[in-house]
Structure formats: C-alpha cells, structure tokens
C-alpha cells in the first residue's frame, strides 16, 4: 500500500515535471535573440512577409508567449507534443522513430556496465589493497575519466579502421535491411523474425558504442560496489555472521553482497540517466540514429517543439528510472518504507 501510494506520488510529481520542463524551454525560447521563423524558412521566403505571416500563424507564433504556452499544455494533455518545425512531423512520431535506437543502445551498455562493474567491484573489495585491486581501481577510474567522444573515435580508428575486427558505425551493416519493426529494437526484432544473422549483426554493432557509452557507468558501479562492500564488511552483522562460523565466501555472498548492492542500485539509476546524456556525443561518433542526434539537430535549429518533446521524454525517463530504482530498493532492502 505504501508502495502504491509512493508510486502515485511520483507520478503526480511527473505532471509538475512535465509542466516545469516545458515551461523552461518556453522561457528560453522567448529569450532567444534569434527567431525560429528565420531559422526554418528558406531565404526566398523570408523576404516575403506574407510567407512569414503564414508560417507564424501555422506555428502559433503570432500569439503572445503565454497563450502559446497554454495552447501547448492543452495539446500536451491530449498527448499531442506538437509538430517539429524542422521535420514538419509530429514530435511524437519523431520520438517514436528515434527513441528505440537510443534505448537499445542504453540497455545494452547498462548491462555491460552492471555485469562488469559489479564483478570488478566485488573482486576489488575482496582483494583489497592487492595489485588486482589497484589494477581494477585504475581501470574504473579510467572508465569514469575517459571522454566518450574521444574513446569512440579511438575505438573506431583502432578496431574498425586499423584492425578491421569491429563493425563500423550505424545500427546494422549498411547492406542489410532493418528487421520488421515490432519493438523497434533491432536485436529483438531480428530475433522475433527468426533472422539470426541479422540479430548477430545488430548485436555486434552495439558492441563498440555500448562499451564507449557504458565505460563511465561501469567505472561508477565498480567504485560503488567496492566501497559499499567494504563498508558492509565492517558492519556488526558481518561480525555476527562470522561468529556463527560462516566461511568468508558465504559471508560475502549471503550477508554482505545483498546489503552492498543497495547503494549500487542508486548508482545504476544515476548511470542510466547519464547514459542518456552521453548519448548525444556517442551517437554523433557512431552515426547512431537516436534521440541524441535528434536533440542535437533540434537544439541547433531552435526547433522548440522538438526540444521540449525530447526534454520531456528524457525527464520522464529519469523519473521512471528513479522510480524503478526506488522499487528495487524496496525489494532489496526490507527496511525501506516509502514516503
């Protein structure tokens, strides 16, 4: 019951979030010295006042800002995010097209980050202060320190261009046809279609961008797992477990790890949020047709409906992920009470 109430509260917050985010972009859009009209009409049409008026009327720009905003929120309530000035398509359709690519990559890299990060963190904590520990800590620090755009460049240069062992940019090899879209996640769609080679190709294409994108989160998870495990190992109930005669391995697996994972879950949430932020850079390098590139283009074109759309999407995503993290928290830690 507490949980449901909590979820309801978070969803209630979402409403404010969406309003807040859209308001911020609206305010920015009003304070912009340049005019999206000029940015999106051809040179010839700019000189034609009739065209400009028509354009403004079409996008509601002839009305005062607050009216525009109310119109926007009104549409939003009906699930209409407006139409992108740049692509002239409903923003919602655009997001539907771009988001799955981003999500596929994000999920892949978060899996890599979690698996390796936790494994490294556990080894590092168990072998505290050993050479192994130092090595892993070094790697994790490298992971959080390496600029993703540069790492992407280096990976492509080395593994694609130089050694030719990794696939190039894009979601699948250029000569392949994308699978019939069901979930819009290529790997899964290809598997659903029973096309193994395509699934493999799509997965293979996820590797480099996934590694690049996940490196930061992996470092973060390694670090947190290590320190959290070390901290838990110094707690009283570990002493109790020892007094019961449990082996070190049992103590770590049964008593320490479960408790140590609790803060790691938070970090995974943060990491997932970071992934979406880092997308812009990685997608640029890997020609990944995702939300990051869309946002980049939208920002450059002052395409405010699109910017708001992306912002809302990512904000909602952030809240949802945090909500999932909180729920997971409750599963991992019976002490958690939602309020």
């Amino acid at each position: 019951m507490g949980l449901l109430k909590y979820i309801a509260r978070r969803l209630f917050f979402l409403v404010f979030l969406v309003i807040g985010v859209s308001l911020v972009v609206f305010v920015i859009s009003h304070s912009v010295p340049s005019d999206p009209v000029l940015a999106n009409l051809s040179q010839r049409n700019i000189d034609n006042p009739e065209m400009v008026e028509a354009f403004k009327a079409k996008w509601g720009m002839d009305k005062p800002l607050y009216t525009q905003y109310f119109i926007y929120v009104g549409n939003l309530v009906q699930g209409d995010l407006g139409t992108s000035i740049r692509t002239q398509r409903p923003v919602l359709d655009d997001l539907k097209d771009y988001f799955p690519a981003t999500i596929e990559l994000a999920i892949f890299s978060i899996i890599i980050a979690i698996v390796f990060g936790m494994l490294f963190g556990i080894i590092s904590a168990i072998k505290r202060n050993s050479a192994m520990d130092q090595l892993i800590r070094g790697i994790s620090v490298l992971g959080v320190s390496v600029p993703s755009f540069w790492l992407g460049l280096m990976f492509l240069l080395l593994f694609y261009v130089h050694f030719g062992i990794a696939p190039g940019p894009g979601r699948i090899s250029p000569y392949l046809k994308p699978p019939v879209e069901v979930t819009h996640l290529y790997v899964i769609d290809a598997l659903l279609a029973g096309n193994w080679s395509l699934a493999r190709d799509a997965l293979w294409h996820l590797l480099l961008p996934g590694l690049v994108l996940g490196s930061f989160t992996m470092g973060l998870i390694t670090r947190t797992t290590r320190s959290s495990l070390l901290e838990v190992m110094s707690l009283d109930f570990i002493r109790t477990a020892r007094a019961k005669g449990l082996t070190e391995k049992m103590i770590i697996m049964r008593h320490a790890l479960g408790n140590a994972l609790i803060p790691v879950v938070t970090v995974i949430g943060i990491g997932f949020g970071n992934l979406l932020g880092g997308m812009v850079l990685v997608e640029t390098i890997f020609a990944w047709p995702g939300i990051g590139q869309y946002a980049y283009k939208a920002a450059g074109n002052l395409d405010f409906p699109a910017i708001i759309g992306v912002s809302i999407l990512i904000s909602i995503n952030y809240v949802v992920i945090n909500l999932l993290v909180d729920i997971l928290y409750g599963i991992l830690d019976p002490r958690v009470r939602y309020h």
Partner: protein
Amino acid sequence: MLLRIMKNNFLFSIGIIVCSLWIVIALMAPLITPYSYLAQDLAHRFQAPSSLHWFGTDSIGRDVFSRVLMGSRISLIAGLATIILASIVGMIYGGIAGYIGGLADEIMMRISEMVMAFPGIILAMTIAAALGPSLYNTLLAMVIIWWPNYARVMRSMVIANKENEYVEAAKSLGASHFRIFFNEILPNSVGPVLVLATLDFGNAILLFSGLSFLGLGSPPPTPEWGAMVADGVLNFNYWWIGTFPGLAILTMAVGTNFIGDSLRDFLDPRLRKEL
C-alpha cells in the same frame, strides 16, 4: 598528511603527480610551448608527429603540442569555475532548504529534482544555440546542470547537523537563526560538499570538453581540447590531431579522479576505521 597518504597509495601518488604537472603546464604554458598556439603554416599542415612538431600539426598547420599545452588553461579554468560556482549556488540553495525544512524544503527540492531530471546536455545545447556558444554561456549551462548535486548533499548535511545537540545547545542559549546557521551548521556541513566538489572536478572537465566537442565552447582559435578532438574527427586519418588532446583530457580527468578516489577512501571514516 599528503605525504603519508602518498606513501601508502600508489594511485593517489600518480594523481598528485599528473595534476601537479598539468597545473605547472597551465601556469607556464606560454613559456614552454615551442610555437605560438595560433601560428599558422599552410605549407606544413597535417604533419605527422616529428621532432619538430611532437604532436604533429593540424589542418592549418598549427602545432598541436603547443595547442594542447595552452588548452590546459581553459580546461582547468572551466573545471574550477564550474565546481566553484555550482557548489556556491548549491550550498546556498541546499542550505536554505535544509534549514527551513517543511513545505519550503519540499518545494525547493522538487525544483532541484526537476533541474536534475532535465537532460543537462540538451539544456546546454539549447542555451548555447540560443545565446551563441562562448565560454561564459557554456559555463552558465554547466552550472545550471550541476548545482542540484551540491544542493542535495548540502541539504542532507544541514538536516543531519541541524539535529546535532550542539545546535540545540546554541538554540537554548538563545542564538539567532542566522548565527545558528552560519556559526554552527555551516562550518560542519561544507566539508562533504567540498569533497564532492573536488571529486567532481574531473567530471566537470569531461562535461566541458564534451560540450566544446559539440561546438558549444569558446570560438576558435581558442585551443579547447574538446574542440580539438572534434577537429580530429573531421580529419579522421590524421590520427594525431584528435588523439593528443583526447589524451590530455583523459590524463587530467584520471589525475583528479585518482586523487578524488583515494581522498574519498581516506576521508570516509567508515572505511578508515581500524578497530
């Protein structure tokens, strides 16, 4: 204390050495660069690394080595400015929210959460696109993205310290809110925020270079590392153009993170406790 930690901690020592090196380079940059970071030489563009140009030359024949060295100044300044400004804003905001508590706190924290939920890099891009890319606008965007972290830490510290008995002691002596906040709570709360800020330095440099990679930093010919990597992507097969500035970002971030990581271990009393 520094030496004592250094003696026992290999990674920390590396961090200190790397960072000091970069600080020295940044301070002395104009004296030690072999060429002017602006000098163009179209006859010698795209030169591979050699004894003349250690890191090669770029698309208009500038010495990449000199530009990388000069670039350290911008990165250091950007990193410092961001964390200082963001931590000041965050500390004030979080301090107030935590001290007042109740509904005001709830509202203030929801607002900061909203900022955190807002995709930072998109906000930065929008600001840069709207106001034009420049160092100041980029810093502004970074501070806007960054302050809620500090606000959160500060708030939780203030809330924790507010419950301390020495605060009650001051209250029972009749101290004003102002005095309690500035004299009792603040000095005991800033520590973790400052630690967080130190740890964040590397992240700030990374974010800044990412933004300048997207062309949102200061305009050319400023030798910004991120922009130089972007130049390297444009001139793909001349690997040195992008590789060295990227390595510079990496080493600086690694250095600060080594320090931060070890510092965290050292300052965390739960890990430090020996009994």
